[in-house]
C-alpha cells in the first residue's frame, strides 16, 4: 500500500505538485493522467525519491520512505520509463540483472531469474540473453525494460509513460502483457500516462492531475460518470464517453436467454467490443459463449445501448 499525504514539490517557490493526497491499494494499478506540465511525473518520481518532496509524507506499507537511504528504497521498487532507458553497453541479460546484482544475489539465482523473465515476455533466452539493446526492436526493448524493472520481484512498480514510444499495435499487446503480469505477481503499479484511453484500460483507479493539483482520484466508471471538473470532462472527451464507459465491463451481466445467428463472442469481451461487432455486422443480437466455447445466451443492441447511457447519480 502506498499512502501519499499532502505531498508538495516546489521549484523556486512555484509548486509543481500541490498538496496531493492519495492512497494506492495493494495489488492494484493506479493510473495518473494529465497533460504535460501537470506534475504527474514529478509525483511519480517522489514515490521513489528521485525527486525529494518539499512537504508531505509518503508511506509504503506504513513505513515513511525517508527512513532508509534513497538508493536502498529504490532497489525495492521497480522503475520503468519511456524509451526504456536500457544501458546500451550491456547485454539484455546484464540489463535485466541490474538490481539483483546490486542486491548481491548469487549467479545461479540471477541467471534463473533472467531466463524466467525473458520467457515470460516471449523472448527466447538462448537468442536474446547476449544481445545488445540496439539489436532489439522497439517493442522488444520496451519488454526488456519492464522485465528489468521486475527482476528483483518488487512489490511496487513505477512506470513513467512506459508505452509512449510504441506503435498502436505493439502498444495494445504491451498493455495486455502488463495486465497479465500484474495479475500473476500481484504487483502494485503506479503508472503515469497522458492517454485517458490507456488509463481507463489499465487503471483500477485513475488520478487526474492538472497544474500540480489532484483533481479527481476515483475508479474509471466514477470518473466517466461524474467528472469532478470541466477539465476532467475535457480529458475524457465527450464524443468517446459512452464507448469508454461500455469498455469498462464484460458481457456477463447483459447476457440474456435466447439464440442468435452468426459468430459468437466470448463472455470476457467488453461491451464496447460487442456493440462494435453488432453495429458493423448489422445484426441486432449475437451469441455469447463461455471460455470453453459453450453457449451462454445472447446479447442485444438494445441491452447494450441502455448500458451506454450515463448512470444515475
Amino acid at each position, binding site marked *: 500500500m502506498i499512502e501519499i499525504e499532502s505531498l508538495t514539490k516546489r521549484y523556486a517557490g512555484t509548486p509543481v505538485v500541490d498538496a496531493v493526497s492519495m492512497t494506492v491499494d495493494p495489488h492494484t494499478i493506479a493510473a495518473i493522467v494529465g497533460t504535460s506540465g501537470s506534475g504527474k511525473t514529478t509525483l511519480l518520481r517522489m514515490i521513489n525519491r528521485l525527486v525529494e518532496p518539499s512537504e508531505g509524507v509518503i508511506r509504503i506499507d506504513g513505513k515513511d520512505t525517508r527512513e532508509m537511504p534513497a538508493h536502498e528504497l*529504490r532497489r525495492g521498487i521497480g522503475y520503468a520509463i519511456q524509451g526504456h532507458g536500457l544501458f546500451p553497453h550491456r547485454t539484455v541479460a546484464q540489463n535485466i540483472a541490474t538490481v539483483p546484482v546490486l542486491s548481491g544475489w548469487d549467479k545461479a539465482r540471477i541467471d534463473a531469474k533472467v531466463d524466467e523473465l525473458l520467457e515470460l515476455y516471449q523472448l527466447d533466452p538462448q537468442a536474446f540473453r547476449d544481445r545488445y539493446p540496439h539489436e532489439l526492436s522497439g517493442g522488444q526493448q520496451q519488454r526488456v525494460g519492464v522485465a528489468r524493472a521486475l527482476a528483483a520481484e518488487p512489490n511496487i512498480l*513505477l512506470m513513467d509513460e512506459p508505452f509512449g514510444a510504441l506503435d498502436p499495435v505493439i502498444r495494445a499487446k504491451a498493455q495486455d502483457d502488463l495486465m497479465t503480469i500484474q495479475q500473476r505477481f500481484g504487483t502494485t503499479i503506479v503508472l503515469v500516462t497522458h492517454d485517458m484511453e490507456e488509463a481507463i484500460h489499465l487503471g483500477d483507479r485513475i488520478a487526474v492531475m492538472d497544474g500540480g493539483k489532484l483533481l479527481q482520484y476515483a475508479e474509471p466508471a466514477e470518473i466517466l460518470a461524474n467528472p469532478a471538473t470541466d477539465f476532467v470532462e475535457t480529458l475524457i472527451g465527450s464524443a468517446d464517453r459512452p464507448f469508454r464507459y461500455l469498455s469498462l465491463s464484460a458481457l456477463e451481466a447483459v447476457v440474456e436467454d435466447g439464440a442468435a445467428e452468426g459468430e459468437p463472442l466470448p463472455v470476457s469481451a467488453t461491451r464496447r467490443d460487442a456493440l462494435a461487432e453488432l453495429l458493423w455486422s448489422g445484426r441486432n443480437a449475437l451469441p455469447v459463449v463461455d471460455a470453453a466455447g459453450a453457449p451462454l445466451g445472447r446479447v442485444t443492441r438494445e441491452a447494450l445501448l441502455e448500458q451506454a447511457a450515463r448512470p444515475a447519480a
Partner: protein
Amino acid sequence: MATIDADAGPQVTARQSWFASRVDKLGVVVALLAAIGALVGPFVTFRENRIVLGEARSIATALPVWAAVLLFVVVALAALVALLRTHAMLRLAASLAAVLALALLVGYAAAYLTPEGNSYARISPAWGFWLLVFDFAILTADSLTRLRLPPLARIGVLVLSACALALVIASGSWDQLSIMKEYAGRADTFWQQAGQHVLLAFGSLAAAVVAGVPLGILCHRVPPVRASVLNVLNILQTIPSIALFGILIAPLGWVAANVPGAAAIGVSGIGTAPAFVALFAYSLLPVVANTVVGLAGVPRAANDAARGMGMTDGQRLMRVEFPLAFPVILTGIRIVLVQNIGLATIAALIGGGGFGVFVFQGIGQTAMDLVLLGAVPTVALAFAAAIVLDALIELSNRTGREGASA
C-alpha cells in the same frame, strides 16, 4: 524504388565512358604523383660532405642500369594498378612492393654512389624519393581503408611494418645513407634521447589522465566548476609552447631552490621538470574537455534508469557513465598523445632532451640529415600511436556508443 534502381542501373553504366568505369579517381592522383616523382624529381642528393650544397641525381643516374630499370618497372606497375579499378588486396600488394623497392634501392643508391673509402660524402634521399614514398603510402593507407580491416588486424599490420623496417635497418642496406651515418655517430645518445622522448610524451599523458579524468568528472557533476576550469585550461592551451617552456623556468627554479627535497627528485628550472609540466598543462584541456563531453553524452534515460533502480552515485559513475563515456575520453587521449609526441621535441630547447636534441643540433649545424634523425622517428612514433589508439577507440566503441546512437 527497388525496381527503378534495377532498371536504371545498367543504362547508367552503359552511358558511362570507358574512362569513368575503368579508372580509379584516387588512382589518377597517385599515378600522376608517381610519374612526377620518378621522372622529374631527383632520387637522391650527393654531397662532398655533410654541410655543403649537394647535386641532385635522378633514378637513372643514381643507380646501375639493372636497378634503375627494376625501380621504374615496379613504380610503373604499381601506378597502373592504382590507376585502374583493381581489388584492394592487389592495390595493397602493389603499394607495399613499391615502398619496399624504394626503401631498398635508396640504400643501394647510397652504397653505389659513395666513393670507395670516402667517409665524408653524404647521400641523402631527395624530394623525388620522398614524393614517391608519400604517394605509395597514401595508396597503402587507402587500400587498407578499402579492406576495412578490423582494429586488431590494423595493429598487426603496424607491427609487421615496424618489423620490416627493423629488418631493412638491421640488414645494413641503409648504412651508406646520410641519416644512418648521422645515427652511427650517435647510436648510444639516440636511444637515450628516444627513451627520454617517450618518457616525456607518455609520462605527461599519464599524469594528465590521472588528474584530468577526475577533474572532468567534477566539472560534469558541478556545472559552476565546469566553466571556470575549462576557461583556465583554454587560456593555458593558447600560450605558445616555447613561451610556456620559458615561463616555467623561473617558478620551477624557485621551487628547486626553496622547497626541501624538490631538487632531489629532479625538479629544476631547466631540464625534464619544466618540459614535463608544460606538456602536462597542454594535455589537460583535451582530457578534461573530452571527459566532460563524454559524460554529457550518456543517454539521459540510461542515467535516469540507473538512479531509479537504486545505483548510488559511485555505482552509476563506474557502471554506466564511465563505460559509456570511455570511447570519447579515449579520443581525447589520442589527441593528447599525438600532440605530446610532437611537442616534446621542443623540450630540447630547455635541456629536456628527446628527439628535439638532434633537430636543434642539426639546425645549428645546418645539417639537414641530423634534423631528419630527430624528425623522422618523431613522426613515426606519432603515426604509430595514432594507429594503435584509433584501433583501441574502435574496439571500445563496439559495445558502447553504437547502442546509444542506434
